[in-house]
């Protein structure tokens, strides 16, 4: 035990000043005892919060870290030239996996989206995906490049922003290589509401093919069952669910 161990409770309560908290975070990986005690404190807290933790989903602040960072980065680059382009509409299901023509680099687009993203940070994280009027299902996406890139390609580290519009209920799933579920909106912290649209912002972390699928229906759509491939999930869907699909190759 070191003197730092004695800060555990105050750290856990978020009451240490920034320097002391940083010092405790440095200490924690080196101290198994603190890790055990911290585990107990966390378990005690969730046991004590069991009743109050059942907050309405639409009361959760988004605080989408990646969106906030993108906004911050964009704000810092506010003087950089930007080439704003509309969000590209996804082609119908079964379309080519190649990037759509014209979907070139949009680096800098977020310069103009910074206020929007900052505002989005105050929006509900989870929402029911309901809209009053419905309308046809639409899937759109754009890629924010993290560095220099060839036009029309996506790379590891780039940020995918997908937007789903239309239908009374809608969900958005992202699969990697057709079998690994990467994101499932609305039950995903990277999802947010933008008016009547559902927006997912996702960092592309691996080379390979990502598949974005938007589903819409008048009825509630169940989340994907764990472990299933995308094709299995789609095959299991009931009639009356519409889908849009887009493949993205990441180099």
């Amino acid at each position: 035990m070191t003197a730092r161990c004695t800060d555990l409770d105050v750290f856990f309560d978020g009451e240490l000043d920034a320097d002391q908290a940083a010092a405790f975070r440095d200490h924690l990986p080196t101290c198994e005892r603190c890790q055990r005690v911290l585990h107990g404190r966390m378990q005690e807290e969730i046991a004590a919060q069991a009743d109050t933790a059942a907050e309405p989903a639409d009361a959760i602040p988004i605080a989408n870290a990646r969106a906030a960072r993108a906004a911050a980065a964009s704000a810092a680059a506010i003087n950089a030239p930007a080439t704003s382009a509309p969000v590209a509409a996804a082609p119908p299901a079964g379309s080519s996996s190649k990037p759509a023509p014209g979907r070139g680099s949009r680096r800098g687009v977020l310069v103009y989206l910074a206020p929007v993203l900052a505002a989005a940070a105050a929006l509900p994280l989870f929402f029911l995906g309901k809209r009053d009027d419905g309308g046809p299902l639409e899937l759109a996406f754009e890629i924010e490049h993290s560095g220099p890139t060839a036009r029309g390609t996506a790379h590891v580290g780039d940020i995918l922003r997908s937007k789903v519009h239309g239908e009374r209920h809608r969900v958005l799933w992202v699969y990697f290589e057709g079998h690994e579920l990467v994101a499932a909106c609305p039950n995903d912290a990277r999802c947010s509401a933008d008016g009547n649209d559902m927006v997912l912002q996702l960092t592309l972390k691996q080379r390979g093919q990502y598949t974005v699928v938007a589903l819409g229906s008048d009825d509630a759509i169940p989340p994907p069952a764990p472990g299933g491939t995308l094709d299995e999930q789609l095959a299991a869907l009931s009639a009356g669910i519409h889908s849009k699909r887009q493949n993205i190759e990441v180099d």
Partner: protein
Amino acid sequence: MVEQPEGPDRSAPESQGAALSGAVPMLKRLAERMCGNPADAMDLVQDTLERAAHGIPPEVRNVRAWLTTILQHLFIDYCRAKNRRPSHEPIDDKHEYVTQLEADGPEPEWTRITVADIRNATDELEPVYREVYLLRTFEHRSYEDIARKLGIPRVTVGTRLHRARNKLREVLVARFALEDKP
């Protein structure tokens, strides 16, 4: 006889989604307090959910407890990645909240404990510790707020909370068939 709290029906995808999304506020609160900034906290919660999205193991009875354990492991990884100091720290750093730490004791089986159990266990605390604990845990009051309300120094709030938690753990250990940990 202690009743086992019923876990979610994990056979239904809907209940899995509900269990995960219902836990987000709690995870977010924990992460924000420990990370020190909202962006890292939300990344931590997101990474936790990504792990959980691969499926809740069938042996898990308490999804929240399971998620919290994932969060803690990821948080330690996060601390390790951000580590900016050698592990051997000078011991003469300023420590405003020095409290006497007891030796490791057994942990209760947290996944069986409900909020009612916690509240009942607080009856065993001395009043000075109980009131601080209740204000902090159930009313989410800050140390400053509690200190002002009770007319005690802020540092005393931390000391009383520490003692309250340790005593509470002893009570819960005694009430729930608990595994002994060295």
